[in-house]
């Protein structure tokens, strides 16, 4: 179960028509910026891209966990997107990505963030979770699956 501060329906996109990694990261940046007073889509997009350049966050099995440190947040912020069809993400297994969970963490990243990343990685390594996410047809349904463990 994730706290609503970390992820909520407003920061989930379902079945979006997205054709590239670039657009996927832009969309996630847009959701993360949302109504946050200090966050801007452009700077989040840039930070996520910078991190991707050092190494793809594509986990395999169509999952990606883009993440970055950013000065403007004091606690972890998440966003989730399910795309209508997979995009080329340069993932380790070469599979296109259709499920992406993005994380922004404060500058001083710590053990807690690593644990969160590990939790997400283990959540998505479960084939039944992936199948349920792919079946879900609304942000609310996606959130229920994400919170089911």
């Amino acid at each position, binding site marked *: 179960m994730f706290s609503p501060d970390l992820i909520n329906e407003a920061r989930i996109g379902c079945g979006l028509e997205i*054709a*590239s*990694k*670039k*657009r996927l990261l*832009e969309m996630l940046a847009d959701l993360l910026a949302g109504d946050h007073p200090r966050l801007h889509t*452009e700077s989040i*997009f*840039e930070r996520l*891209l910078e*991190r991707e*350049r*050092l*190494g*793809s*966050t594509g*986990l395999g099995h169509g999952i990606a*966990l883009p*993440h*970055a*440190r950013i000065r403007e947040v004091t606690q972890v912020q998440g966003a989730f997107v399910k795309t209508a069809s997979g995009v080329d993400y*340069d993932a*380790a297994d070469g599979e296109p990505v259709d499920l992406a969970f993005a994380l922004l*963490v404060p500058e001083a*990243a710590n053990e807690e*963030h*690593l644990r969160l*990343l*590990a939790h997400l*990685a283990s959540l998505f390594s479960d084939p039944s979770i992936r199948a349920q996410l792919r079946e879900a047809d609304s942000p609310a349904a996606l959130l229920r699956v994400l919170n089911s463990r």
Partner: protein
Amino acid sequence: MKIIILGAGQVGSSVAESLVSESNEINVVDTDVGLLRQLQDRLDLRTVVGNAALPSVLRQAGAEDADLLIAVTQSDQTNLCACRTAETLFKIPTKIARLRSSDYTQHPELLDNKNFCVDFSICPEQIVTDYLLKLIEYPEALQVLKFAEGLVSLVAARTVPGGPLVGKPVSDLRQHLPQIDARIAAIYRRDQPIVPEGDTLIEAGDEVFYLAATRDIRRVMSELRHRDQPTRRILIAGGGNIGSRLAGAAQDRYQVKLIELDELRAKGLGATLDRTLVLHGDATDEKLLAAENIDEMDFFLALTNDDENNIMAALLAKSLGARRVLALINRRAYADLLQADRIDIAISPAQISIGSLLAHVRRGDVAAVHSLRRGAAEALEFVVHGDRSTSKVVGRRICELDLPRGATIGAVVRGPSPDTPGAPLGQVLIAHGDTLIEPEDHVIIFIAHKELVPKVERYFQVGLAFF
């Protein structure tokens, strides 16, 4: 990577050619239908006909999804306008513009994100000129390439009989030069790469690539071949973009003569190049070359925009007694035919300038790339990040790394201290098995087969847990 290339001229088409074989999706934009058709016949890419600076044309070329824009049309203005448009309307993350006029590059604020939004500007003519200047400075070298802000050089040289290290194993280098550290990164024998081990014997005629601190490269060279006389007299054929730049850059240190075919152009150059002797004439004219004492020339460079002329002029100059001749050759097939035969150095301008673009296409934090052996090999400078748990490289000794055979780390360059990012690099460590790699080190690696590049890129990537 999704890449848009604007301009299908010499630069654009050779960029397309070297990127297309990799896992990239490429779209080329040009106003010339014929040029685009030629490209499409040869290469697996998409094309769009139109004005490269127009939003609708960029959109058609897939700007919304593109990772990289390479604006290399003939017009600086089109390239600038396209970068601005790409940023404002499409948020393309990386934008590279070819800018020939130094007017723009003298005002870097014009290129920043408030103005033309050019992340990197390149001037192929300047890159080629710098490359040629190095060859003038180091007459024994086939190639001298810079890494780590110039602290480290990668040098290619052909060994000659009687060179102190010829006939000896690679490991003897250390005994011959105990006070200097250098690393032989690759050896090409009859055009085939040999991965050098300590006991590999160096033969005469080998093309040896070595890495050393820039201040040491001459000493290492003297182990491979006897010291040539320094360059004093240069004859340049062709006063075009490259020839005139080179004359301007070399005229204060060398005696430079330049032959230009076009009379008006020759006059103009004569007026601007005050320390160069500019001659009007044809560089393939035997009498003219003889009259200009070609046999006393240390270096003859054929730099016209005509491959055949360059080849003929260089052959002629060599047979008339010029010590060393070089020909600029755009057509790859010609360059392959000629190198190491009767022309001392054949270079392809596209091949030389492609590295500056490849640095932005390669995965990872790549500070520099040089394409070698006509694209068959590559040398990269990676900046490494993370720690032992998030990187496969950091916190390990070079002997512990599991790099593919054919990928050889030649040098590591370390900053002054991790607390001062942005400060200039300091310490050059020539790679040995026990060299420990630290975070933020610049690691320079020679890759003998281009096919290995993706593997090496992956190896240098940080793991998921890196924040």
